[in-house]
């Protein structure tokens, strides 16, 4: 960590406005920038990066980087992350320049396609090289988008995790719980986008607003770094006299936190509270007490801040992370891993690689030759070279059957499903 701004222990001064830049990558990312520009991200620099000229043309962002090369023939990446990656490597210097001068860089992207999945990890590396703190906010594709996209997204996510300081990931599939059946496709994507923006906003506020109880920047970095899993996040708001209670209720009913189960399983939780001037210490205490109770095993970092614009509103953003999900039962936030085994035939020279946790080293930079090769693949029926380091396909771990209680109402106690045998929940090994 190069950026380690000296944060005084107690400060009533507004935190120093850190130079932050929000970079939208790919069509989804660029689209999200539009949403964010409407919100209160004052002081942020926006950069749009894409290979697709039409998407960039529709963007109102001042700084646009159009990654283009003769070899793509203006057709974008065509959904191939390798191509996205190759072109990003080619224009590495441009990306690096775009990142220069910022303390924090938010990368916003929709993974699964060509541009987002391919460029985001490279961009993260470029940003890292400038010495900034890199936080990636990404979405994983919907289940119906197919195994291929899932796999591409998963790969890209793994690469991102290695280079970025923090990855906060929203599997789109989960938002199905938030919306009713009759929501149009357009609205669904809008809602997913807004959810992600909410997450960005929560962190944004954390870093920019005057903190009554400040979250140390270092704490935040420590939380999001090296937790090799998708962080689950939820942001809720409530107003009125009972707002502290309401906020906790909403939080525990939040579909992304799975009835508080995610909180119970996470090992680090960051809570950012934001209220108007009337935010009372008692309210902060009440909310924290409830949250603490639900995540007994976690290290909880909390911050509270006042935003005069909030009036009677109380907003709470929770980011929950857990360490090393490989060792645990399928992480609730993880995309279905089964998708990874489906696409093996595409890669003819696939090397079987043992799935050692933490084995997802950042892909080596392309050689000139490889880059040409990746870009020049248009229309050619040649087999692809296994460029990216493949991960061994993982089958989903044993699903715990609840036996006789399969069909009865689950007994949920503080986020734990008591119908699952205790020894499994506590991780007691027999033998």
């Amino acid at each position, binding site marked *: 960590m190069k950026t380690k701004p000296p944060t005084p222990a107690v400060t009533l001064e507004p935190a120093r406005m850190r130079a932050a830049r929000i970079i939208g990558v790919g069509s989804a990312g660029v689209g999200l920038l539009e949403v964010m520009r409407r919100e209160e991200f004052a002081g942020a620099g926006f950069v749009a990066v894409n290979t697709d000229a039409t998407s960039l043309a529709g963007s109102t962002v001042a700084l646009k980087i159009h990654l283009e090369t003769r070899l793509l023939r203006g057709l974008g990446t065509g959904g191939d992350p390798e191509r996205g990656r190759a072109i990003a490597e080619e224009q590495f210097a441009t990306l690096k320049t775009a990142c220069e001068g910022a303390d924090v860089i938010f990368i916003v992207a929709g993974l699964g396609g060509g541009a987002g999945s391919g460029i985001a990890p490279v961009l993260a590396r470029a940003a890292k090289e400038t010495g900034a703190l890199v936080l990636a906010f990404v979405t994983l594709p919907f289940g119906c988008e197919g195994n291929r996209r899932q796999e591409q997204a998963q790969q890209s996510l793994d690469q991102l995790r290695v280079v970025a300081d923090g990855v906060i990931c929203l599997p789109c599939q989960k938002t199905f719980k938030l919306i009713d059946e009759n929501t149009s496709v357009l609205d669904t994507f809008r809602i997913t986008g807004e959810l992600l923006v909410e997450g960005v906003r929560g962190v944004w506020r954390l870093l920019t607003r005057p903190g009554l109880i400040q979250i140390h920047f270092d704490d935040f970095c420590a939380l999001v770094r090296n937790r090799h899993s998708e962080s689950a996040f939820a942001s809720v708001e409530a107003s009125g006299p009972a707002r502290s209670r309401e906020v906790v209720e909403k939080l525990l009913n939040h579909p992304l936190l799975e009835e508080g189960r995610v909180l119970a399983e996470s090992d680090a939780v960051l809570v950012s509270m934001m209220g108007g001037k009337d935010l009372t210490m008692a309210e902060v205490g009440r909310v924290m007490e409830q949250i603490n109770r639900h995540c007994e095993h976690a290290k909880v970092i909390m911050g509270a801040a006042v935003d005069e614009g909030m009036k009677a509103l109380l907003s709470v953003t929770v980011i929950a992370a857990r360490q090393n999900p490989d060792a645990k039962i399928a992480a609730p936030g993880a995309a279905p891993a089964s998708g990874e085994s489906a696409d093996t035939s595409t890669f003819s020279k696939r090397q079987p690689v043992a799935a050692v946790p933490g084995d997802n080293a950042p892909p080596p930079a392309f050689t000139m030759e490889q880059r040409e090769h990746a870009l020049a693949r248009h229309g050619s029926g040649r087999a692809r070279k296994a460029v990216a380091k493949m991960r061994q396909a993982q089958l989903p771990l044993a699903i*715990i*059957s*609840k*036996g*006789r*209680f399969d069909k*009865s*109402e689950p*007994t949920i*106690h503080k986020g734990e499903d*008591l*119908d699952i*045998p*205790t*020894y*499994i929940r*506590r991780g*007691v090994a*027999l*033998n």
Partner: protein
Amino acid sequence: MFDDSSIIVGLEIGTSKVCAVVGEQGADGALNIIGLGQARSRGVRKGEIADTAQAEEDVRNAIVEAEQMADVEIRNVYLGVTGGHIRGFNNRGVHPVVSADREISEDDVQDVIKNAKAINLPTENNVVHAIRQHFFVDGQDGVTNPVGMLGSRLEVDVHVVHGNTNRLQNAIRLVRGLQLEVDEIVFNGLASSLALLTGEQKELGALVIDIGGGTTDYVVYAGGVIRHTGVLAVGGDHVSNDLAYGLKVPLSRAEKLKLEHGSALLDEKNKGQSVTITNELGLPLKTVNVEHLQRIMSLRLEEIFQLVAQDLEQAGLFDYLRAGVFLGGGGARIPHIARLAEQVLQMPVSIGQTNSISGLKSALNQPEFFTAIGLVKFGSFKTRKREGKSLARDIKVTLRRFLQRP
């Protein structure tokens, strides 16, 4: 006996068994258990009815058995209810005494209790019990009966037990479907505590934990009144299910293993021991490690006690339990369970005894019958109260009955 009004029947539709207990209240008020009927329950999960047809059949069998044994016809029952939806909390009601002489009348008491019951429940919920704890007269604490006292402001603390109306109705409708009248529904945990605790223990403060098949019900008494109730929808069924899962045996086999080799604590002598399961022909099927079995069980039971302990800690009641903890329900039969509970709760724990009932004593003084016995006891309190309340009405009722007789 020509007056069957002294017959009180408690019916518990449990997860593992349906149990009907027939009690007879003598003229002196002493309660005598004269009949018991039980049937294996097949239609209940976690204390709530899941299969009406099967549950109905089981209830009928239990009732018929109890009728035969006691040689009476059962018309009314006190029905025990439980389930994860049942909650208890304390509430205070206030009522200004408006009469000119400021004397508190029986009506004032009724009013204040009504106020205390009028709480903000979710619309789909219904009050099962509103048990009065203490009255306050003009802020003066600890009044047990304020009638006749002078004061301007009467307050009462009540403990309200409430549950989901529809789910409570399921059990009631089932019993009504068998042409039986439900006198009252009673929370199982409360019933168990009535069967187990003496007045002195209630006064000192006691915790009753009834570990049933599908639920664990617990009740805290302190200062002679109920201070806290709770239901945890985890019970013996969960233990069997854990074993079936962990040892990879069918559920029925797990149940059997639980009964034969189960223990709440790891037995030193069982370390590394294993037993062989045989089929009905005596051929070996599978070897099961007893240590694993007991560890799985021990963890589940430990968790149950921990959850109860957490709840009590939150309610701030730990320091009031001077008489200790009493265990009931089929779960109390598990070897070493009291020791495990002692380790978790850090206070003396014993298996409960029913002591205030005469009759089939040796047959009944078993933990799994405590709830049903408690239901009978609850009924006897009610009838006694009703009788004591108005002698005139009592005479009227007797007369009417007499006249109606053919």
